[in-house]
């Protein structure tokens, strides 16, 4: 169980990011971010448009004013207006018909600026006397009556600065709203996550077969509680149904005990009281043998249902696996020898583990009895215990027909009978008993191939968690 909890812990970082609260917060964050960008872009665009309009008007007014000014006064007027412009963002230029510089603070006419008195954007800026500046600017050119070209231009730096301000406002908004939001979301997600982990802890005993256990409900009546309540109602129903099924089979079993006892007793008395030379006596004897077979199977079925029902681990204690294997080996050696089967035992040092000693012997006896049963004369059955990093393991190897991969899951179920030659009676129930004992111990049973032929049944003797199929 400790190993399992560790697995969950290892999953934690990934699992936390998959939490629904975190996902919601992340989706919200993305939408918030996108909308903020759109909003700020629209604001920026509108502001720029407005400011460009204002700048354009100023330029238009001035160019028309200057166009009406007397030609001789024009340079001085231009200089004078320029002085009004405190920030030095307004530029003037007067060029002759060939485009040569006459006066003003623009060196040469901006490229692509038609002399039609319309406000145009100058994407490559201006070439001014104060040097090259490639900032965005608006300009207007007008051909004077003298044939000279008057150019007025103004940088749009104010509008651009406002754009920069709105952009920084966006970043602030993101850091002030989005980051605390995400952080809050992450913290919020921890609550439900912890509850899911509590549910996982609570579900462990249910998976081990304790159907009386229920998931914790906090009383907050939120989604997690709703889910837990639904699962609990389902568990109520399953528990009741299983109880009914078990009740029915227990009653059937109990009701069968008395008639079977009577049947066996009366047959036996008939046999003892009848004349041994009468051929009917032999028939009665066969009836008794059949009845005994019936009783054996009936007992085995009851045994499986007892084992499946067994929740107590009172019989559990420290068991030496190697010693258990030696006992099983001693018990079955004469049987193997009688059949001409070599029965090898490989155990090394003591292998202590927590188990019910009697049930462990029962499980191993069943496996060994099966192995001997299916191994032909001259074959070998091997019983082997070894230590692995996780715990002890037992291998029972035989030279029988083996178990086809497709049947490996089914042979552990009740009443299964293989179609590939394993036809000796009692096989299905024997392995079912083994499977029930393995489940009770939370060990794992694996069926594989022995080389060159036969089956290998392996018991991994450490807790595997109830979810693993035994």
């Amino acid at each position, binding site marked *: 169980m400790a190993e399992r909890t560790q697995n969950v812990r290892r999953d934690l970082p990934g699992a936390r990011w998959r939490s629904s609260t975190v996902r919601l917060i992340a989706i919200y964050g993305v939408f918030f971010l996108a909308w903020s960008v759109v909003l700020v872009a629209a604001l920026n665009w509108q502001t720029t448009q407005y400011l460009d309009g204002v700048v354009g008007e100023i330029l238009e007014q001035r160019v028309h004013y200057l166009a009406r000014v007397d030609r001789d006064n024009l340079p001085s007027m231009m200089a004078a207006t320029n002085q009004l412009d405190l920030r030095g963002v307004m530029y003037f230029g007067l060029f002759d018909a060939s485009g040569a510089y006459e006066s003003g603070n623009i060196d040469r006419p901006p490229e692509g600026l038609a002399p039609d008195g319309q406000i145009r954007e100058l994407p490559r800026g201006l070439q001014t006397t104060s040097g090259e500046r490639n900032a965005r600017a608006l300009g207007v050119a007008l051909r004077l009556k003298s044939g000279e070209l008057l150019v007025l231009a103004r940088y749009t730096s104010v509008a651009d600065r406002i754009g920069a301000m709105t952009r920084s406002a966006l970043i602030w908004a993101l850091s002030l709203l989005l980051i605390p939001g995400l952080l809050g979301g992450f913290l919020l997600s921890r609550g439900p996550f912890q509850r899911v982990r509590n549910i996982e802890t609570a579900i462990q005993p249910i998976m081990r077969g304790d159907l009386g256990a229920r998931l914790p409900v906090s009383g907050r009546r939120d989604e997690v509680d709703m889910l837990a309540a639904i699962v609990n109602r389902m568990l109520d129903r399953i528990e009741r149904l299983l109880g009914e099924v078990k009740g029915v089979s227990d009653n059937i079993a109990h009701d069968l*005990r*008395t008639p079977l*006892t009577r049947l*066996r*007793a009366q047959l036996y008395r008939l046999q003892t009281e009848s004349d041994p030379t009468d051929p009917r006596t032999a028939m009665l004897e066969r009836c008794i043998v059949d009845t005994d077979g019936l009783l054996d199977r009936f007992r085995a079925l009851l*045994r499986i249902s007892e084992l499946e029902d067994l929740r107590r681990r009172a019989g559990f204690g420290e068991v030496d696996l190697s010693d258990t294997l030696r006992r099983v080996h001693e018990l079955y050696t*004469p049987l193997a020898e*009688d059949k001409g089967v070599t029965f090898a035992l490989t155990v090394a040092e003591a292998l202590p583990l927590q188990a019910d000693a*009697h049930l462990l*012997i029962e499980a191993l006896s069943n496996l060994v009895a099966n192995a001997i049963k299916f191994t032909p004369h001259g074959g070998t059955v091997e019983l082997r215990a070894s230590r692995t990093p996780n715990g002890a393991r037992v291998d029972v190897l035989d030279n029988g027909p083996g178990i086809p991969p497709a049947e490996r899951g089914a042979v552990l179920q009740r009443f299964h009978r293989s179609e590939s030659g394993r036809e000796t009676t009692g096989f299905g129930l024997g392995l079912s008993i083994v499977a029930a004992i393995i489940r009770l111990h939370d060990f794992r049973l694996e069926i594989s191939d022995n080389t060159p032929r036969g089956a290998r049944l392996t018991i991994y003797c450490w807790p595997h968690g109830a979810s693993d199929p035994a």
Partner: protein
Amino acid sequence: MARILTIEDDAITAREIVAELQASGNEVDTVGDGREGLARALTGGYDAITLDRMLPGLDGLAVVTELRRAGIDTPVLMISALSDVDARVRGLRAGGDDYLTKPFAPEEMAARIEVMLRHRRAQVPETALRVGDLQLDLIARTAQRNAATLELLPIEFRLLEYLMRNAGHTLTRTMIFESVWGYHFDPGTNVIDVHIGRLRRKVDAGNATPLIHTVRGCGYTIRVPHG
């Protein structure tokens, strides 16, 4: 001849138990109710009791508990429809001497009663056992037949000891497995048979008179052949 009390509420089962016990020469009284059964048992005078676990009036477990509290140590064979380990442990802890699960074979029940009766008669601890010319020294853990020492494995010695302690009585495979190995499950059809077979080859080797006998359809016994 022993006096046996059968406390069993199912009339047909009771009849068959009585028939089987009478067939081996016992005198049997039968009672179908727990309370009455306890009253009879408390009078003493019985050598063994078969007690059904579930009875009207008073539960079988309560009967044996009351009996032991009253200081009556008559051996009790509990017969129960409850077969799980817990039920067996509870039955034996309450004071039952042996535990048999329904459905059972009457000869198994009778064999267990016979062994219980024999144990009641022989209370003195033995240091050596003898059947005909076969001798078992329980201190030195050696076996001899006709002055020749038998080479027995430890498990064979325990098996022979169990047979010889109950010499003359039939022992079923289940009884042998439970007593010699101490386990309560079905070890498979002929596991006990092959163990007995091995022991028999050592004990009854050569021309010696066979001592270990198969009781057809039931089990084994060790005894000097009649006549």
